């Protein structure tokens, strides 16, 4: 079937098998490989991307379901000038990543979380990341990165 998606601002049209998952569309058709597959069961969040601005796990969304909609992946987060998004910058400064495999999904989940709740508490961050598994960091610095990104975005500074 034919699907038409806007990925990181770019229109992509392709004929795909009906059962094509969004994550495979992103990786194999759009050739954007930052988005990783970690579990196939919507458990680990490695494949988290934004669909019309909201986080989804792209291993459990069909490309067909995303037809006509806009997807943002990790590759689309930095500014056109190449400046990192506050969440990416916070991950770097707070050592929020080690092997990097969960990172694209984790970053996208936090971007979405902070959009919904610009100044979360630590507990709110931890609960908000319950669907994203990291095996390297023990989450300590991921949580710090999320709080730092919130603070650097201004609105979180008061809490």
């Amino acid at each position, binding site marked *: 079937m034919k699907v038409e998606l806007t990925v990181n601002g770019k229109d992509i049209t392709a004929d795909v098998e009906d059962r094509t998952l969004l994550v495979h569309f992103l990786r194999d058709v759009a050739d954007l490989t930052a988005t990783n597959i*970690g579990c196939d069961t919507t458990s680990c969040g490695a494949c988290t991307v934004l669909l019309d601005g909201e986080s989804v796990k792209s291993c459990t969304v069909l490309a067909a379901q995303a037809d006509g909609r806009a997807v943002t992946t990790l590759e689309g987060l930095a500014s056109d000038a190449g400046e990192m998004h506050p969440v990416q910058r916070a991950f770097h400064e707070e050592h929020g990543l080690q092997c*990097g495999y969960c990172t694209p999904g984790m970053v996208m989940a936090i971007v979405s979380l902070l959009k919904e709740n610009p100044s979360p508490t630590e507990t709110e961050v*931890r609960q908000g990341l319950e669907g994203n598994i990291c095996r390297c960091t023990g989450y300590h610095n991921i949580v710090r990165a999320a709080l730092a990104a919130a603070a650097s975005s201004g609105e979180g500074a008061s809490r």
Partner: protein
Amino acid sequence: MSILGTRVIRTEDPRLLTSGGVYVDDLREPDLTGAVRATFVRSTVAHALITGIDTSAALEAPGVVAVFTAADMTDLPTPPPPEPLPDDAPPPEGPNPMGGVWQEPLLAVDRVRFVGEPVAIVLTDGTYAGEDAAELVSVDYDILPAVPSIEAALADESLLFPGAGTNVCVRGGRPIGDDSAFDQCEVVVEGDVVNQRVAALPMEGRATAAVFKGGKLTVWTSTQNAQLARLIFTAVGLPPDAIRVVAPDVGGGFGAKIGVDREQIVVAWAAKRTGRPVRWVETRNENLMAMTQGRAQLHHIKIGGDREGHIKAYRLDVVQDSGAYSRMGGFLPMLTNLMAPGVYDIPVVEADYKAVVTNGTPIAAYRGAGRPEAAATIERVVDWYAAEAGVDPALVRRLNFISKDQFPFVTKTGAPYDTGDYEAALDKVLAAAGYDQLRAEQRRRRAAGETRLLGIGLASYVEITAADGAAGETAKVEVHDDGTATVYTGSSAHGQGHHTAYAMLVQDELGIPMDKIEVLHGDTDLIPEGVGTYASRSLQLGGSAVHKAAIEVKEEAARKAAELFEAAETDVVLDAATGTWHIAGDPDKSLSWGQVAAAGDAGLIVANVRFTADRPTFPFGTQLSLVEVDVETGKVTLLRRVTADDAGPVLNPLLFEGQRHGGIAQGAAQALVEEILYDADGNPLTATLMDYGAITAAELPSFELLTSETATTVNPLGVKGIGEAGTIGATPAVHNAVIDAVSHLGVRHIDMPMTPERVWTAIQKASEK
């Protein structure tokens, strides 16, 4: 000022954060264009004879390029015929797979021994064709009684390897003596402690891509050591020099990616056989059935001492579940025996082991590999003994520690501890946690009859890192005529931050700024000799090699600079702050690194080093966990984690803390949520992440890390390994905390993972007494 010891953010990160890592499935090498996908047909039963395999329907399916079974691998040398082992055969000592009668095939031949064992490989074009075609391969099984547990294995009723005559594949350690040492003790505790089977669970599973072109096999594989992997890939019937192994970005390993597994050899073989590039990336379901798992030991313990808290005797009897194939012989339980007495000077220690095969996933190294099991049990039973004796567990530890003036200290089990100050680490943690106040609050809640009780768990641990220091590690450092440097290391980064750490070492020695230093690893064409990253060995061996290579480069550069200055070598100095060469006392005349390197052979200055250590190192520490246990539901909440983990001087606190964080989370996860389970027929019950309990951010607190730095003399950096220490301390600290919360109710032990059901049941049983 030296950059060493400072918080330097990672050079690895910008790429990982903006375009993502390049893991095996992300490779877009021209050689992999048009690669076929490999899908394995796996055993659906735990134990059976294979009576027939029919691949005809699969071969007809759309997109199928080839289907191979063991019968197709006729080009490979046949393994030597199995010979029964003599009864008095010595146990294997190294981490080697067992051959002979215990041989593990590449694809199942006539028998399957665990659910998930690879039986056939299907090569297809297209993303989804492989799963469809694999479903069409029909395998006929003649079901045999399953051996799903250590108990079933020891019964020796159903044998995995009939030629062996038993399921016990290895025995070792010191024979258990008589009970005389315990007869003198006022307090004796005896019981079983289970160290349950857990998954290594790197977020990237196993993955391999292979191309055979012009007589050379190139394999990209997710591994912790490309050089070892190259030796293993010779199983496809090629000599090492016809094989190039590349480790691209690796999404975590935790021990389970040391070398490569049988599937990866089959993928490389299939590329050689078909001439097509082949790529295999396992699903999580496959990963949880067929990547090697960890721990899986049953301990029988006996500990005795007096009523004041002095431990007099300790006995540890280990049975290792090896899974279906003994990948590591007796190596893991041998390490458990070696580290059995932990941080204590106990007059009588006995430890022995045996390993059995079961119809489960093979067991191999997992973060700590044999040492966490030792620490988990000695720390658990010290608390158990303390509770029976009615002595505070912190005091029992203090009374029995090896004291700091006893180092170097050889334990009763033969471990040569290098340096340590166990009491100082305990004191730091007790003070920072406010131990006395926590105990007071614990008493208050109990007295008030509250339902949410506090538990305080301690673990004072010691572990062995770089146990194979004699194998050492390689480093080559080059300085080029443009003033840049390249480091080639045999270590193999998969998240630890080697690139940052090794560049810091070179900057510190040579004054070349980190952004002009490139660190390369994991390519056997570039780095033919190397050992890799496991056993917390990288900084102490690989880092020491880089450090020594940088020093040799500096010495050679000094000679070149002297020639250029027409001065005596002793008059030439390097200003490490600016990375420029001078004549002493004449700062106006200077040479840049590029100018000096240009005078070297071929325009560069280079040093090759293999650093070896004649002894292992023994990091140590104390960890404290505070938990809240709801006695009405058994639910455990982890409230605080206070730890002092001492691995000598810290190169980069950012990386050091990161290793501790990750280790603590994994250790806590084993105590609270993780367990691989099988049913009575050997079917895995935890083969997806919907069933297996990976711990999440919501279940963990932030960690309170204290500093403690006791240097070793074993290497020039004074460092010990920190990769596994967090895990080793965390499991018993959390375990003890939960039992401490309910010990006043008469609960003495609960096996891990301490699910609400288990905790609640233990409370009910204790109250019935």
